Structures are given as C-alpha cells and as structure tokens.
C-alpha cells in the first residue's frame, strides 16, 4: 500500500506532530487545577497562624510583664491547651545575661510535622 503512493507522508507526519502536541497541552490543562489544590492545602497545613499567635502572646505580652513571665499558671495554661487543642508541644523560657539589659526568650513549637525554634532578644 505504502509502495503505491508515498506522496502524502509529509501530511501524515504533520498530522502526528500536531495531534501529539494537542495531547501534551491537554495533559498540562488537566494537571493545572490539581496544582492549585495542593498549594492551598500545604498552606493550610502549615501552622503559620498558630506559630505567630504563640509567638505574639509570648513576646508581646508575657515577656514584657514580669508577673506573667514568672507565673507557672500561665505557662501551664499555654502548654496544656496547646497540646490538647492544637496537638502541639510548646515550650518557652525567659532569661537574662549578667551586665546585659536585654531580655532573651527561647521559643519551641512542634506539632509533629512542623518544628519551630527561636531565640528572641529585646531591643
């Protein structure tokens, strides 16, 4: 059959190329929605707000108030509620250096997936 008339081989080749390129384009469109989903899911899964909230309450409120910073009640509140409601182990301590006016704060947050450590120093 092919021997009888070879003239249309160019047309057939172009036809193949175009159809393959359409399939690859369709594949890309097919995957595009899934990309949006996985991005949004990983953003939701990352505990950005939890860490910022914990950091905020500790650095902005507790570390600036010696009564709060030395209160075991507040510390146990934060640890117990974090573990129970956020599945996160948190720890923190306020410390000072001799002959240094700065306040230092160690923060630790771990929810099994995300681990966050910080040593913060006051200005």
């Amino acid at each position: 059959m092919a021997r009888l008339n070879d003239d249309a081989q160019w047309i057939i080749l172009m036809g193949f190329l175009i159809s393959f390129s359409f399939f690859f384009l369709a594949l890309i469109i097919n995957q595009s929605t899934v990309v949006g989903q996985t991005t949004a899911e990983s953003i939701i899964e990352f505990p950005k707000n939890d860490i910022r909230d914990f950091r905020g309450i500790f650095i902005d409120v507790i570390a600036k108030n010696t009564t709060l910073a030395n209160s075991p009640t507040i510390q146990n509140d934060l640890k117990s509620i974090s573990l129970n409601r956020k599945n996160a182990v948190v720890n923190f301590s306020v410390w000072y250096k001799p002959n240094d006016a700065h306040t230092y704060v160690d923060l630790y947050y771990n929810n099994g997936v995300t681990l966050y450590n910080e040593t913060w120093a006051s200005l």
Partner: protein
Amino acid sequence: MVNREGGQLFTIEGIAAGLLMILTAYLVVSATSVYTAGDTHISDMQLEQIGSDTLKIMDTPENRTTQSDLQMIFSKPIIDEEKFKTNFLALTNNTTSKANDHINFTANYTCRIYPGNDIASSQFSHSRNLTSGEHAVRVTKWVIVNRSFCGTTGEDRAVLVEVLMWRD
C-alpha cells in the same frame, strides 16, 4: 530486497497509533475527577486568613495601658457575647462594595482547670448554630484573661479562643 522494506511505514504508523490510543485512554481516565473551586481549598485558605486577621485586630489594645476588645469581652462578669458577635461580624463581613459578606461563626474558649492538666471548652458566642452542612474553617487566638474561672480567682490566665467560621 527493496520490496521487503515496505513494512517500515506500517510499523511506525502502528506504533504511533498505539501511543495515541494509550495517551487518550490515560487522559480520559484521569479527567474523570472534576475539581470545582470549592474542592481546591483556595477559598478556605482566604477565609482562614480573614478570621485570623479579625481576631488579631480584636486582641490589639488601643495603647499599652488599656485592654484589648477581646480582654474586655472576657473581663465582664458574664462574658460579653453580644459585643463579640457585633465586632466579629462587622470586621469579617465588611466589603468594599455595598453588599456585605455572609460569614457566620460559632466561638468557644478553652481554659485549663487549675490545678492539673485537664481542659474545659465552652461556647460563648455564635451568630448561627452549626448544622452538619457547613464547610467551616477554624481560627484561634491566645488571650490573657483576668477573671474568676477555671479554678482560680482574680489571676491572669491564658485562654484559647477558637472560632469556627463559614460562608453561607
């Protein structure tokens, strides 16, 4: 000899057609899961951010010596459910157009029962009851509260405010 090469074009054609069919079948099978905008969680992500920002605003005092709105709500003898509801709905549902958004919420707080490590949660405010149909996201905020509850009297306590919010 020349005549025996006549099958090459047919072979290539066969392979190409086979590849096309396999690719088509793959695309058809993988295209059966149709994603809608809600499935992609992009709106959830945005809703969660609105909620976190709102609680952050409500827990920001006007200056260093006053209490924040959230602290004032909790320092009332009976937790000021109405004030929380009004402020939260006003902050979340405001839009730049005239029409308001339709965000609803239920809020509860969690404290630790002193002494020990048990916790207690109770609802203190809601705009509508949560039935089973809503697709809610959770936002949380730590608040330092001074009131007589959860086993202590007149001592500062850390309380976790949790809000479930959804769009109707």
